């Protein structure tokens, strides 16, 4: 099940402290940014002051806009290009600075010297008033503290079982474990202290103002093990023969059906007549499905992909 990625409630400081990227190996896999605060983010929701947008790039057929979002913890670039037409139109529409909420995907660009540049590719904007901003900060602060607590506990005792964090999303526990592992020396009490500015904005004792330029975080990074996909052994002659029997019978059933699909149960029955057990047939179906030869768009109904 490819669930939609939730928009992690976060702040500029967390994004700027995140240096670890996780790329999926499968086709169209999502990319995640792992933060020392215990988030494994693909999509984020941020709020703050957006500066005037500027266009970058010279090609007028490939418009690309950039702006900066400032929150009580720091600054983060926000971009929108031709692939986000609605976000781009909304970004261009307001020339001056404004208070806004941004939903978008995190993007990590690593320069030649290895420096990481994090930005957010906007999918949606909304201009908001100060009360709404403080509401969003209240959520984001509570969730950030929850996540920091989780990582801190796991740094203290990495063997703690998942059920010790009852009520926390499974995705958070997983992210916290990885975060504890990959950022062993991150200054988490320092991150927590920096969130005081957010608390004061929620309380109304601090104005929503751009902060002084944040100090670069000192973080030691343990590089991720490169994940190698398991080697695929070439199918044997016997497996090839089974595959061709499978596909021949599939084609027969498809030809004789009114809707262009072969019934899985019928196919398994026919294969049994050819001496193939239902387990073997299922395994074969899995393999052919993975290889993209056969598909099952309706449960129990098969066709050639």
């Amino acid at each position: 099940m490819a669930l939609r990625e939730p928009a992690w409630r976060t702040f500029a400081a967390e994004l700027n402290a995140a240096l670890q990227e996780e790329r999926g190996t499968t086709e169209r896999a999502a990319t995640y940014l792992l933060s020392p605060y215990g988030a494994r983010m693909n999509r984020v929701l941020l709020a703050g002051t957006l500066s005037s947008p500027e266009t970058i790039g010279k090609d007028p057929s490939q418009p690309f806009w950039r702006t900066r979002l400032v929150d009580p913890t720091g600054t983060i670039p926000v971009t929108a290009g031709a692939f986000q037409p609605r976000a781009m139109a909304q970004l261009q529409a307001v020339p001056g600075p404004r208070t806004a909420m941004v939903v978008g995907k995190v993007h990590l660009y690593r320069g030649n010297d290895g420096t990481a540049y994090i930005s957010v590719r906007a999918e949606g904007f909304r201009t908001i008033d100060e009360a709404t901003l403080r509401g969003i900060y209240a959520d984001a602060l509570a969730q950030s503290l929850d996540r920091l607590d989780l990582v801190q506990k796991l740094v203290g005792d990495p063997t703690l079982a998942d059920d010790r964090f009852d009520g926390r999303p499974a995705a958070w526990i997983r992210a916290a474990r990885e975060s504890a592992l990959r950022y062993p020396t991150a200054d988490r009490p320092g991150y927590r202290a920096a969130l005081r500015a957010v608390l004061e904005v929620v309380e109304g004792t601090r104005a929503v103002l751009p902060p002084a330029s944040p100090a670069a975080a000192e973080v030691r990074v343990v590089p991720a093990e490169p994940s190698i996909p398991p080697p695929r052994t070439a199918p044997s002659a016997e497996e090839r023969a089974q595959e061709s029997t499978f596909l021949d019978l599939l084609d027969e059933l498809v030809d004789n059906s009114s809707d262009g699909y072969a019934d899985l149960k019928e196919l398994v029955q026919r294969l049994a007549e050819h001496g193939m057990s239902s387990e073997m047939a299922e395994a074969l179906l899995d393999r052919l499905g993975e290889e993209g030869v056969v598909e099952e768009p309706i449960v129990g109904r098969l066709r050639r992909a």
Partner: protein
Amino acid sequence: MVEAPLTNEPGEVRLKDLRAGDVPVHIVARVVSVERREYTRPADGRRRPFLAGLLSDGTASVRFTWWDPPLNEEIGRGTILRAQNVQVREYQGRPEVSFSFRTRVAPAGPADLPKVDSSDVPFRTISELRGRSEGFRLEARVVRVAPKTVTVGAEQRQVHEGILGDGTGLLAFSSWSDFHLTPNEAIRIAGAYVRTFRGRPQLVLDEASIVARIDPGRLPSIESLQPSEPQSLAKLEAAGGSEWAVVEGIVVALLPPSGLVYRCPTCQRPVAGGLCTEHGSVQGMADLRARLVLDDGRGTVTMNVGRPATESLWGVTLNEALERLRRSPDPSLLESSLAEEVVGLRLRARGRVFPDDFGLNLYPESVERVGVDVPARARELRARWEGDRGAP
């Protein structure tokens, strides 16, 4: 069916005890659902009829296939059969039965079914009922119930749909027999079974089910069985949906098709190219809808919002949307305008939540804009901040 009525012979197996194997068995069961189908042999194109459906004897339900069934006899929902020399197979870890030319099938009566009411079957709680189950008793309170008319084949039937609760969870039910259920009463149910409907368990009651009123004091109050506070979307995702949930979050996206849509005047299905998939060429009726993605930072849910809620969130009525379309004939402008208006809104919604391949779908009974009590949240966060500082 075969000529001589068979007597109650030894060796009769209850459906819950069926195991796949070479030994043919003897069963007595009631047809729960049945469909007449045909298999075409690819080799010579010969057609072979069969019946496929579900059998139940009150202890369990199993799928059945009946090859070359009698043509002139009515085998339908409710028919009770006695079958000897039945082959048992296993499919996806569940036993299935198949009637071949070797199987002797004869009509039977309710008295021939295994006696399974009262003390014979165990009590289950709602949280224990997952997937296909049968042969249990359940004590629960009716949280809501309403009649509904459905078309089954050529026939109009009334079904009573609702929700039961027992403190361990909520369970949707649909009753094909009228037990005169009313909200808030406490009941004990035997002879019902659980099937999966849109990825959620659903309790089905029919003529064979037994419903008894029990002391309502033994169950949690109806108020406590209904959700009132929003629950985390991550928890809802982990639970695979809910019969009745309250959720709260920020709208992070508007998914197509949203905005102005055209529906078949008969069945309300969306019309594509002037064609309804059921009713052919039709004059589509204009309607408004919005598919919103609600996000609470932990998980997401897609909400399918109908016309009244779309109008109120957008601030544009259907007639105004049509008028805008006449002025600038580009429907995507309408969708963009709707997106600008709804993305970023904080909403609270309640309704039924079903899972699918892309996550959860909520069919809202109510959708409302909500604000945040910022001073209260600030006090909460301050207390937590001070508490954390004191902690080691």
